[in-house]
């Protein structure tokens, strides 16, 4: 059918518009059929998937599932992801949740440049290590900061206690310290000289508290410099576009918040 059958091989098919590729698992995948990506760019994991897909021209339909309007709780979306979380991917009949799983899937299916998820055993392990660590140690404190500093006050009209705020700030600072000392160290990027999925996930998480006017990059010049490198590698235009909605969150009229969403909160 095609020229070679190894990973990355492309095949000519009866239908000249149909592009197929082999990723090494033995099956042929349709490359030019658009994926459905269910996202709201307010969510850091969604931004990681969005940026990665745009950067590599992966064909997808942006299915906007509005967090502020409670859309994850809609019947249609629950059919896609009963956990009501974002992002979700739909590739034909195949539905996948969890941004880390989605990023790995996209890397493999679309044979993206290897530095994103390097084949070297030790270097890849460093990416896996960060991707595992960040769920609890990074994402949670960053999310909490937005809740405590912005969302709860805006929604309930009450400020959060200073004690709680201080505790959360301390948690965020501790995560950033661990990030710098253990994961980044003196390297350009987490794995070394090139950007990988780990940097992408790290940067979108670190951007999250910006919505609450908390700049996590001010703590350390090393981290600030790393962020600039990551932004440049991604492309400033794409980076800014992906973060537009987040940066405008504080200006959103919370009085229009769907009562269902308010209750869930």
């Amino acid at each position, binding site marked *: 059918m095609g020229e070679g059958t190894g990973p990355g091989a492309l095949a000519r098919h009866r239908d000249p518009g149909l592009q197929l590729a082999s990723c090494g*698992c*033995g099956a042929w995948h349709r490359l030019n059929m658009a994926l459905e990506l269910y996202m709201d760019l307010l969510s850091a994991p969604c931004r990681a998937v969005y940026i990665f897909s745009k950067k590599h021209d992966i064909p997808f339909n942006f299915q906007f599932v509005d967090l502020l309007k409670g859309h994850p709780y809609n019947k249609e979306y629950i059919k896609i992801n009963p*956990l009501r979380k974002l992002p979700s991917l739909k590739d034909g009949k195949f539905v996948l*949740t969890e941004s*880390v799983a989605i990023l*790995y*899937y996209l890397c493999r299916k679309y044979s993206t440049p290897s530095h994103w998820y390097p084949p070297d055993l030790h270097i890849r392990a460093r990416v896996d290590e960060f991707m595992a*660590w960040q769920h609890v140690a990074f994402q949670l404190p960053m999310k909490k900061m937005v809740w405590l500093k912005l969302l709860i006050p805006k929604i309930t009209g009450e400020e959060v206690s200073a004690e709680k705020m201080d505790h959360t700030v301390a948690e965020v600072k501790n995560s950033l310290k661990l990030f710098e000392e253990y994961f980044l160290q003196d390297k350009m990027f987490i794995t070394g000289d090139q950007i990988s999925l780990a940097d992408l996930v790290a940067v979108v998480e670190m951007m999250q508290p910006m919505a609450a006017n908390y700049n996590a990059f001010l703590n350390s010049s090393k981290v600030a410099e790393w962020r600039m490198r990551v932004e440049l590698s991604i492309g400033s235009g794409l980076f800014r576009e992906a973060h537009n909605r987040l940066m405008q969150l504080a200006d959103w009229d919370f009085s229009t918040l769907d009562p269902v969403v308010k209750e869930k909160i």
Partner: protein
Amino acid sequence: MGLELYLDLLSQPCRAIYIFAKKNGIPFELRTVDLIKGQHLSDAFSQVNPLKKVPALKDGDFTLSESVAILLYLTHKYKVPDHWYPQDLQARARVDEYLAWQHTTLRRSCLRALWHKVMFPVFLGEPVSPQTLAATLAELDVNVQLLEDKFLQNKAFLAGPHISLADLVAITELMHPVGAGCQVFKGRPKLAAWRNRVEAAVGEDLFQEAHEIILKAKDFPPADPTTKQKLMPRVLAMIQ
């Protein structure tokens, strides 16, 4: 010096790695890090893992933390049977999906269940309010149900017809509340059947060996005041 695995079988992720390495005949030196004695906080151990957590791996000069990363490292390095982390794109994605989901959900619930039900009152001598315990057990219930409804469904194993890393990680997590006396499989015949399949696939002897310590968690002698003081801050941070 060959592969060294720094483990305490009290810890769920350590059990998953122990079982995986043994089952696949991966040669390693077991370096026990006694959590109850606070050995993970020692300077010696921080040379292996500055994050002061188990499990940790040392392979020559290369050190690694995070159980999921360690399992994937062992999978790739030792070329284990395909079913543990299938080459097939979608089957592999299912394993990745579970391994990502469980960090903040089932793992957290299982950890809190053990600590709120047994470790705080018995080991640390710290009372836990009935409301806190009830909330923790309710959350555990929700996550166990999600495991069954969203991940297992009507399949033999979590990611398909064969055992994978996902099943190993899940089962070792569930043994935490089991060790605390929670009957997570009661009223859940589908999940109980899955548990039996996993145990059979792993091998009953290996499974029992890995879980000997957690099943005796209720019998741990109380910590002395010094140890308690040393452990408390990190325990509180760990289970929040």
